[in-house]
């Protein structure tokens, strides 16, 4: 299939409902219950009945066949389902697959969903197998992998731990404006807080690493002709692309360049917009290094220059780039696979700017006149990269 064929999907589908559930702590709730609750809430938000759902897309760290388990739990008999597991970015690739299935007429209403109770169930949860040729050295995955990238990045570009810390400080500043954020009440972070936090895998300390929370999320997608008649502002999928170059960190071709270079280029090309056209930028920030890498790889600055871009809280609420406006995986929520939350924030900002009630933020937490958002997902150890571009109807 050449690029023109996939570009045919531009604007053909839209998200018409979204929800999160159980974010933070949800003791006494299973991952499935959290996920299914999000699906029902997202359908309520859309004003679409469960019996209309004929496409189910899901991945979790608790279910080997998540789409099938979720369909059964919901009592849905999907005409098409996909439980592809490429880590935390899975949902952004499900969105692309759902768009293809909707456009092909295989299905009419898709739900994309995720759920996790990792925090209340004891901590970080993965169903990843041990990596051959790595496992015997006992890396603390995934932290070790990101630390190896961060160390290399610092070495190649003269970046410092302070540069990384800027990312965590800005993320927290956004969280302070978002009552949904897990750290909303925790007060601001200083550079020194980040530098002096307990070391986990040098050069990354505890505050360079994402939160460990519970939480689930879901979105509802339909074809654009149907979306126009739903009760909320539809947000259109303008671009989507994925790529991955490795599974194990020891196989990553270059520790400071991710395949987001490729996914971003194709997603932006499909959308017809450029990085600087984006009103909001939602990046999968499982670790502080991610934000630097993705700002560069998606084209917001040249390689090695993101450390300048994030200085002086330039990606915080008062800055020029509206990055991870919910507080990110670092300060809002991270139940183990963060991709659908990147998506939710990209969508919520656009819906709020269009007049929908998607919750309260403190002053400056919502981006005025937001028209376009990029949502970028990462999976594995800087492995799978998936970029989605979302826009309101004016941008079609």
């Amino acid at each position, binding site marked *: 299939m050449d690029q023109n064929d996939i570009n045919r999907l531009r604007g053909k589908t839209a998200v018409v409902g979204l929800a999160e559930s159980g974010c933070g702590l949800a003791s006494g709730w299973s991952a499935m219950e959290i996920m299914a609750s999000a699906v029902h809430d997202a359908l309520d938000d859309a004003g679409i009945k469960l019996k209309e759902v004929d496409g189910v897309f899901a991945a979790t760290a608790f279910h080997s066949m998540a789409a099938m388990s979720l369909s059964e739990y919901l009592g849905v008999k999907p005409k098409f389902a996909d439980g592809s597991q490429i880590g935390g970015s899975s949902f952004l690739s499900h969105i692309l697959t759902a768009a293809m299935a909707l456009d092909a007429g295989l299905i009419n209403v898709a739900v994309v969903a995720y759920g996790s109770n990792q925090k209340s169930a004891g901590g970080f949860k993965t169903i990843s197998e041990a990596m051959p*040729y790595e496992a*015997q*050295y006992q890396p603390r995955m995934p932290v070790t992998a990101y*630390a*190896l990238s961060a160390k290399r990045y610092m070495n190649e570009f003269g970046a410092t731990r302070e540069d990384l810390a800027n990312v965590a400080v800005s993320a927290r500043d956004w969280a302070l404006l978002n009552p949904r954020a897990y750290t909303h009440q925790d007060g601001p972070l200083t550079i020194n807080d980040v530098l002096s936090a307990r070391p986990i*895998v040098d050069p990354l300390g505890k505050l360079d690493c994402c939160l460990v929370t519970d939480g689930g999320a879901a979105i509802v997608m339909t074809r654009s002709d149907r979306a126009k008649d739903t009760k909320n502002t539809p947000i259109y999928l303008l671009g989507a692309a994925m790529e991955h170059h490795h599974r194990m960190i*020891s196989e990553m071709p270059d*520790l400071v360049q991710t395949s987001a270079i490729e996914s971003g280029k194709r997603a932006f090309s499909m959308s017809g917009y450029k990085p600087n056209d984006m009103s909001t930028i939602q990046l999968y920030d499982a670790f502080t290094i991610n934000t630097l890498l993705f700002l560069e790889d998606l084209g917001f600055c040249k390689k090695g220059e993101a450390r300048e871009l994030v200085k002086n809280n330039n990606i915080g609420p008062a800055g020029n780039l509206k990055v991870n406006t919910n507080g990110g995986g670092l300060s809002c929520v991270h139940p183990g696979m963060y991709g659908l939350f990147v998506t939710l924030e990209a969508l919520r900002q656009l819906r709020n700017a269009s007049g929908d009630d998607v919750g309260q933020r403190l002053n400056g937490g919502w981006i005025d006149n937001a028209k376009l958002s990029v949502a970028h997902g990462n999976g594995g150890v800087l492995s799978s990269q998936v970029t989605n571009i979302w826009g309101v109807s004016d941008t079609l």
Partner: protein
Amino acid sequence: MAENLAGTVGPEQQFKNFLSEGKFMIQRCKSLNKFFFHPRVAFPGSGERDLEWVEASGNGEVYSSSCNRRLPEKGGDFNLSLITLEEGPRMMARVEGIDPDKVEIGQKVKARISSLNGEPAVIFDIV
């Protein structure tokens, strides 16, 4: 050509068997004259299957490094690095004989076969 694998072992097991014999072996594609790691049934990306095992020189350079913090009662901090071998491929390993947080990118290292949790393992020392 691989329909019947009975009586043979795959490249992963062959690699481990070599380690047990005290040899750090890596694969080379003969037609491309290129080394690669980790061991596979064919050259990654283009699929050539004319492979041979060659003993690695053991010379390498630190590509990146990390200090994994661990409680003293669980064994204490340890180093985990990515090493670029002189032959070209890269691998994960530990660098020992130096404080785990003192391993720096670009340092020259030399492989030896040691053991981790009772299994033979390639470990590197600073040259």
